[in-house]
C-alpha cells in the first residue's frame, strides 16, 4: 500500500490538470452537436464516470475474491475503497444522466433498462457500504460484504449490455463503436476518459490512505485497551507513577 501513498501528490496534480483540460476541451474544443445542442457536452463526463464506476466495482469483485481466498486485510481495504469511489462515479452518472435526459427526452427519468439496472447497481453498493458501516467490524462482516461486493459486480455486465438485450431509450453506443464521432469530439472524449481515470486513481489512493490510518488507530486502540486491562493486575510494573 505504501508505494501507492507516495503516488498521492503526483496523482492529485495530474488529476487536477487533466480534469481542467477535459473541461476546457468539452466546452471549447468539441463542436456543438446538431440535434441535442450544448447539453450533449455532458457526454464527455457522463460516459467516463460510468466507465470508472464499472472499474471500481470490478476492483471490488477482484479484491473481494482475493479476501475470501486469502483473508487478506489489504484486499478487504481495497474492496471498500474501490466501492466508495466507484459509488461516487456511479452517483455522478446517475445525476448527470437525468439532466441530459430532461433536455433530450423531455423527462428526468424513465424506467428504461439501462437506467433501472444502473440504479440497481447504485443501490447494491449503497447496501454494501451500509453493511460495512453498521455491522460490527469483524471477520463475519468482512465475509458478508465480500459476498455482496461480488454479487453487486455481477450487475455490471447487465448494465453494459442492457441496451443490446432490451429495447431502451438510452443510446446504444458502445465504446468500441464510436467511429462515427467527429474527430474533435473523439479527442475530447479521450482526454476526459484519461482525466477521469487519473481522478479515480487519485481518489482511490486517498481512500486507501484513510483505511491505513484506521488500521493504525485500531491497532493502537487494542494496545491501549490491553494495557488498561493489564494495568490493575501489575501496578508495580508501571514504576509507581500513579
Amino acid at each position: 500500500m505504501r508505494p501507492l501513498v507516495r503516488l498521492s501528490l503526483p496523482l492529485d496534480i495530474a488529476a487536477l490538470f487533466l480534469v481542467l483540460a477535459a473541461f476546457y476541451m468539452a466546452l471549447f474544443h468539441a463542436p456543438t452537436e446538431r440535434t441535442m445542442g450544448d447539453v450533449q457536452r455532458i457526454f464527455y463526463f457522463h460516459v467516463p464516470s460510468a466507465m470508472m464506476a464499472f472499474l471500481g466495482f470490478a476492483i471490488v469483485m477482484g479484491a473481494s475474491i482475493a479476501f475470501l481466498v486469502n483473508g487478506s486485510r489489504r484486499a478487504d481495504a481495497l474492496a471498500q475503497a474501490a466501492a466508495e469511489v466507484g459509488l461516487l462515479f456511479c452517483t455522478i452518472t446517475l445525476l448527470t444522466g437525468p439532466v441530459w435526459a430532461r433536455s433530450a427526452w423531455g423527462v428526468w427519468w424513465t424506467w428504461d433498462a439501462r437506467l433501472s439496472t444502473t440504479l440497481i447497481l447504485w443501490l447494491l453498493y449503497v447496501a454494501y457500504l451500509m453493511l460495512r458501516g453498521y455491522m460490527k467490524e469483524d471477520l463475519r462482516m468482512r465475509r458478508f460484504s465480500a459476498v455482496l461486493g461480488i454479487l453487486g459486480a455481477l450487475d455490471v455486465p447487465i448494465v453494459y449490455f442492457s441496451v443490446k438485450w432490451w429495447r431502451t431509450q438510452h443510446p446504444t453506443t458502445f465504446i468500441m463503436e464510436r467511429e462515427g464521432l467527429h474527430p474533435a469530439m473523439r479527442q475530447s472524449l479521450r482526454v476526459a476518459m484519461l482525466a477521469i481515470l487519473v481522478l479515480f486513481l487519485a481518489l482511490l489512493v486517498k481512500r486507501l490512505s484513510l483505511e491505513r490510518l484506521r488500521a493504525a488507530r485500531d491497532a493502537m486502540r487494542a494496545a491501549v485497551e490491553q494495557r488498561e486491562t493489564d494495568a490493575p493486575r501489575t501496578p508495580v510494573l508501571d514504576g509507581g507513577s500513579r
Partner: protein
Amino acid sequence: MRQKSGGFARLAAALLIAVTVAGPASPAVSAGAGDLAQVEEMQPGTGRTGSALDARKSASRFRYLMLGYGLIWVSLGVYLLSLHRGVGRVGREIEELKARLEESGGGAQKRGPQG
C-alpha cells in the same frame, strides 16, 4: 495528509465556482470555427442561428449543461470534504490514543499513524 486533502477540497470548490461563472457566455461561443459539420445551420441571409424559439432552446440546453457540470463538481467536492473530515477525525483519535498510551507509561507503542 489532512492539509493536502483540505486544500484539494477548497480547490475543487473554487473550480466549481470558476467553471460556473466563467463558462462560455452563450452556446455559440462554445462552437469552434472549424466545426461547420456539427454546429447548427445558419438561416440563409439572416446571419442568425435559427429563430427566437431556437435561441430559447439553446439557452435552456446551456442551463442544463451548467447544471450537469455543477452537479459533477458538487459531488466531487462533497466526497473530498467527507474524506478530509474522515482523515481529521481518525488523526484526532490517534493523537488521543497516543496520549493515553504515554499516560499509561507506554513506550512500546510509540509507532504513530505514519509508521
